[in-house]
């Protein structure tokens, strides 16, 4: 017999490492109000976790998850009040920083952990023998690119895996570079009538795409700060992107994309996360802090679950979730919204659609877990309100109270227009700028797309069309990736969920409102240097993050300007926002622990039928709020069914009824399965009912006949 590996602390954590961790540096000071909470360096995370372990030895322990490709370590915090460390791990997994461009996720997760541990008593109560595992930074290799210590500061979505992105038989030979020596890899704008970009009239530091359909011709090319190091005519086309961990999981994994990795779970970072779930199948859900947001936009429903000829099996992977599982997810969404409103945050973000190979989708589609994700912050797409407008705006908001806000959750069109796509859109556009005639034809296709968009309302404006077309004429891997995302989005809007009509109506209203205000146009969401973001940085952060354009003599391109935005500005949550968000998340995470399933035997009845014959009945009941399994998890079988067994003392015998019942799933809040037996026994004999499972704690009931 080979039981599933146990992730109890005793098995995993050598005492020496523990000691080392505890002896390490003091935790970084947290100050919610400070506008400049710095992102944690990679080597600050372990000490921060160790500090929490030291402060809360009864609840917290350290869970090392192993080294990365680039030689960093990934560590997790394990919170549990269970008496024995080796008991199965049942509970939730919180993961931040899968995307290397988001080092701030670690701040969210650590602040969350601190907030949870502030009231040790309350946490211990909801934890019971459940567990909460928190991984602050799943991709330290990528984060290192933004945090320094890995060449000039640049954006690196993936880990430290080298690759031949442009398939020229040379590996990472032409990376974006810091040409002007300011320590940052920013942008180059190159005067060129063949370019697609123009200087934004709202802000000469901002760039937007020329609207060719309206007779506007581009004046600039916009390129990542780079050389043509390998002389192939492409600038910065094969850099250190690594493998995007959030594209490296098996569900809908995109093969033959360098960004996805060589094969599913090819990367140690993703494999170690996957093992955590595969080896601890009691984890009932994940909460990913990152660019996706399951609260802003619920996953769509699988409309056509094709079953194969075999019981409990399907002929193709799902793209959406089973309807049975969307109910509890909606309830979690409701609770999330409630706890956030309590904290005064409306949580209005636009998030990325679920990509193929993502962790959170895999957690559901293979792991059978509740797939939650939350995006703490998105770069603003609208200009900040000025003082007087602000007042007016407040009135308008008050008047609107109760109505669906056009920007919020549920609007799938909207949420799909990810602001995370800023830089990649631009990179795609810039790359196509650089292509030959063939691609110009594709560019014209783009215009058609844009034209359509322009005619539509501004809120509904979806750069997906635009971007998708770029991809067709462009071999760049990253672009393909993005293009696929957007295809997904289009599907979503085409399929039309129930909510869509309402949302569309809300969009129209919003569009009218905006149209009235001619001084407040929307900036180019696809730009890596969008006017609205510059305005926001000016107003809220005294211009921090804006890199003024400066002339530079480029060896390949001649005179250019280098500048724009500091790397990470569009992706990474500002430190103070991240810290606050972590605090606000704590009540919701306590809810997640409180709603976990738990089973008990109820209505146990023994009826003496005479002559030494007894009729026994009992019900196994779920007293938790969530079902014992997701409906899909009951199919994937990673988490085993609840096994109910009847044992009789010597001399007693079973006359009718099963010795073992496998209960696939019990609904939440009282879901039950009734069972009956007929037993031959003498009074005083005992029978024992037991139930054991991955997702709920074992129970046992002794009955005297």
């Amino acid at each position, binding site marked *: *017999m*080979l*039981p599933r590996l146990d992730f109890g602390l005793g098995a995993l954590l050598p005492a020496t490492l523990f000691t080392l961790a505890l002896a390490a540096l003091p935790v970084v000071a947290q100050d919610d109000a400070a506008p400049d909470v710095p992102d944690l360096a990679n080597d600050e995370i372990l000490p921060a976790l160790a500090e929490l372990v030291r402060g809360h030895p009864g609840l917290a322990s350290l869970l090392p998850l192993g080294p990365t490709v680039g030689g960093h370590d990934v560590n997790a915090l394990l919170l549990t009040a269970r008496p024995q460390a080796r008991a199965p791990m049942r509970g939730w997994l919180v993961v931040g920083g899968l995307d290397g461009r988001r080092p701030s996720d670690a701040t969210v997760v650590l602040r969350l952990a601190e907030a949870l541990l502030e009231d040790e008593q309350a946490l211990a109560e909801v934890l019971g023998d459940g567990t909460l595992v928190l991984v602050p930074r799943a991709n330290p290799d990528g984060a290192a690119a933004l945090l320094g210590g890995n060449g000039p500061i640049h954006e690196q979505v993936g880990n430290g895996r080298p690759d*031949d992105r442009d*398939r*020229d*038989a040379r590996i990472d030979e032409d990376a974006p570079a810091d040409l002007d020596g300011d320590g940052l890899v920013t942008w180059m704008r190159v005067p060129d009538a063949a370019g697609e970009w123009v200087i934004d009239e709202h802000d000469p530091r901002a760039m937007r795409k020329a609207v060719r359909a309206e007779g506007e011709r581009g004046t600039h090319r916009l390129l990542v700060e780079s050389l043509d190091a*390998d*002389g*192939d*005519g492409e600038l910065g086309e094969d850099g250190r992107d690594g493998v995007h961990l959030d594209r490296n999981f*098996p*569900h809908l*994994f995109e*093969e*033959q994309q*360098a960004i996805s990795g*060589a*094969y*599913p*779970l*090819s990367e140690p970072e993703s*494999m170690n996360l*996957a093992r955590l779930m*595969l080896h601890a199948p009691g984890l009932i859900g994940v909460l990913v802090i990152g660019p996706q947001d399951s609260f802003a936009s619920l996953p769509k429903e699988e409309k056509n679950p094709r079953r*194969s000829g*075999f019981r*409990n*099996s*399907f*002929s*193709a*992977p799902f793209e959406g979730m089973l309807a049975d599982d969307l109910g509890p997810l909606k309830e979690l969404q409701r609770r999330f919204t409630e706890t956030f409103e309590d904290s005064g945050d409306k949580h209005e973000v636009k998030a990325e659609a679920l990509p193929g190979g993502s962790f959170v989708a895999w957690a559901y*589609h*293979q792991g059978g877990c509740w797939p939650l994700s939350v995006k703490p912050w998105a770069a603003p797409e609208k200009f900040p309100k000025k003082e007087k407008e602000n007042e007016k705006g407040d009135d308008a908001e008050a008047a609107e109270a109760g109505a669906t806000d056009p920007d919020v959750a549920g609007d799938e069109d909207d949420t799909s227009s990810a602001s995370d796509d800023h830089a990649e859109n631009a990179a795609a556009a810039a790359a196509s700028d650089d292509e*030959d005639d063939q691609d110009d034809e594709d560019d014209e296709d783009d215009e058609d797309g844009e034209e359509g968009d322009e005619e539509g309302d501004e809120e509904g404006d979806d750069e997906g069309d635009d971007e998708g077309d770029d991809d067709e004429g462009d071999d760049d891997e990253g672009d393909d990736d993005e293009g696929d995302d957007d295809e997904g989005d289009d599907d979503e809007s085409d399929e039309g969920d129930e909510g869509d009509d309402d949302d569309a109506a809300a969009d129209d209203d919003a569009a009218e409102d905006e149209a009235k205000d001619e001084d407040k146009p929307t900036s180019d969401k696809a730009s890596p240097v969008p006017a609205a973001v510059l305005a926001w940085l000016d107003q809220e952060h005294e211009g921090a993050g804006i890199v003024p354009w400066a002339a530079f003599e480029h060896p390949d391109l001649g005179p250019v300007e280098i500048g724009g935005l500091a790397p990470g500005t569009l992706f990474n949550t500002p430190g103070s926002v991240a810290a606050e968000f972590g605090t606000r998340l704590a009540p919701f995470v306590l809810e997640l622990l409180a709603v976990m399933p738990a089973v008990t035997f109820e209505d146990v009845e023994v009826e003496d039928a005479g002559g030494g014959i007894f009729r026994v009945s009992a019900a196994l009941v779920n007293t938790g709020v969530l079902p014992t399994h997701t409906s899909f998890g009951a*199919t*994937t*079988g*990673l988490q*085993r*069914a609840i*096994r109910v067994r009847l044992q009789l003392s010597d001399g007693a015998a079973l006359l009718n009824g*099963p*010795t*073992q019942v*496998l209960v696939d799933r019990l609904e939440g809040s009282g879901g039950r399965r009734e069972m009956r037996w007929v037993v031959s026994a003498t009074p005083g004999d005992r029978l024992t009912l037991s139930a*054991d499972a991955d997702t709920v704690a074992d129970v046992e009931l002794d009955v005297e006949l």
Partner: protein
Amino acid sequence: MKTVDLTERRRWPALIAALLLALPVAAQSVREPKLPIAWNRFYDYDGIVRLCTQLATAHPESCTLSYIGPSEERRPMPLLTISRDVRSADLDSRSAMWVDGNVHGNEVQGGEAAVYLAWYLLERDGELEAITELIDERVFYILPMVNPDGRQWWFEGANTPNSSRSGKRPTDNDGDGEFDEDGADDLDGDGDIVNMRKRVEPGTGSYRLHPDDSRILQRVPQDKLVEWGADYVLLGQEGFDNDGDGRVNEDGPGGYDMNRNWPAGWMPRHIQFGAGDFPFSYPETAAIGRFIAAKPHIAAVQSFHNAGGMILRGPGADTRTSYFPRADRSTYDAIAAEGERQLPFYRSMVIYDDLYTVHGGFVDWTAETLGIISFTNELWNSSQLFSEGAGGVDVWDDDVTHTEKQHAFDDLVMFGDTWVPWHEVEHPDYGTVEVGGFRKMTGRTPPHFMIEEMLHRNAAFCLYHASEMPKLEVVSVDVEPAAGGARYVTVEIRNTRWIPTRTAVAAEKGIGPPDVAVLAGAGVTVVAGGAGADRFDLRDFDAVEHEPARLQLDRGIPGHGSERLRWIVRGQGEFTVTLTTQKAGTITATGTL
């Protein structure tokens, strides 16, 4: 950089030709094997390891034995590497073929087929020109047992022809939290797992004894149960309810399929039975994955299974047809067509279309993810028991059941060797039952005296496939004057075999690097360059915009085709054109301006 010297004569054929002249003619009529091996039997794990050891010991210059793995049960997995000067040569510069067998534990003859291939290559090296050339120019990586645990279990355990495909990692197949707790049971302890039948009151069963042959049960139509007095029920394979859950034999040893564990269209268990938790989740598949990924010069793959007589290629699923572009299909068809001639009773088939859907199969991975021309052969077709009409049995007659043919063969040719006669056994759940049926070495494996033919014909197919790996030669190097004192340099390179240096799927999906041709010379400046040069019009070639001295050939050199490269150069002196490929080594051409 290692280059292939085209002028070098093959040493061995010349040497052997000289030897043969000196030998008496009679030596050819009775050929004593260098390493005698009995090919009319099967070998267990230790037996296969012993054969591999003997081969490597007998041929140290051209054969090495290494081990990958180990398997789940810690068995090292022997791997033979065969090539000329195998210890010293730069093997990466030679096209290589991967051959394996026995990923399914019960499909044992794949192991012998792989060892036979190695044996035959080494045995006839220096004697037959075609074989000598293969060892000179190619590399063979031969892994006889992908699933050594399953193989050993099939031989030593009580099993059927079909039990089991799996490896031996304990697996909870019935979801009750217990692992491998209810497999088949050898009720009578005779080492065979056969069928159980039980006699019941006439009319209450669903079978009766065949009127002409009481060994055979005949299913009785529903409306004739009483009239015909159906008095037998079938109770499945030998075994009982070990775990008391009311089911028999529902969770035996292992219970997964390592030929569904590869990262090409991999699907989890609820879509693809046996897939494992993730690609490469078993030690055997992970070890092979690591080995093959580190050997990008592998240009051909052959995997041996049983049974049915098939030469299979992908795709494994209808969603994967884009991985088989037209150009590659032509290559597959050309090789498989020759295979059908080498392998009577075998048919060339496409897995998803002619067999069934496979997600994450081994050859799916090598063909679709690695871009290698890959075949799976299903060894042995029981139609081979009788050639047409022999023994009074028409092999193609559907009215004669498979069981009847098998009995006829067992009676006439095997003298009862493969049949366990029905006999009574006490069963813990069913009372007195009868146990009987064909032994495990029937149906999916040939009788002993037909093993060698199966092995040789399949080896022949491998050798043909290996010979069709790309082979390059320089056709011509031409220097011609251009206007303004420049010169045109034109180099034509030909591939004389079916498999291109880069398959179409590799080119289209961006698998591996493109071939790269570089013109260099101390006194030479390259002004322009490009492939696709016209034979007559010097100005007609696909000039590249950047790096004209370094031409990327995304589609490589096609099978039985050539590529004409042209440069405009200035200067004088010697120049070298070097074509670097992943699958066919490096070839150079030189010239002078």
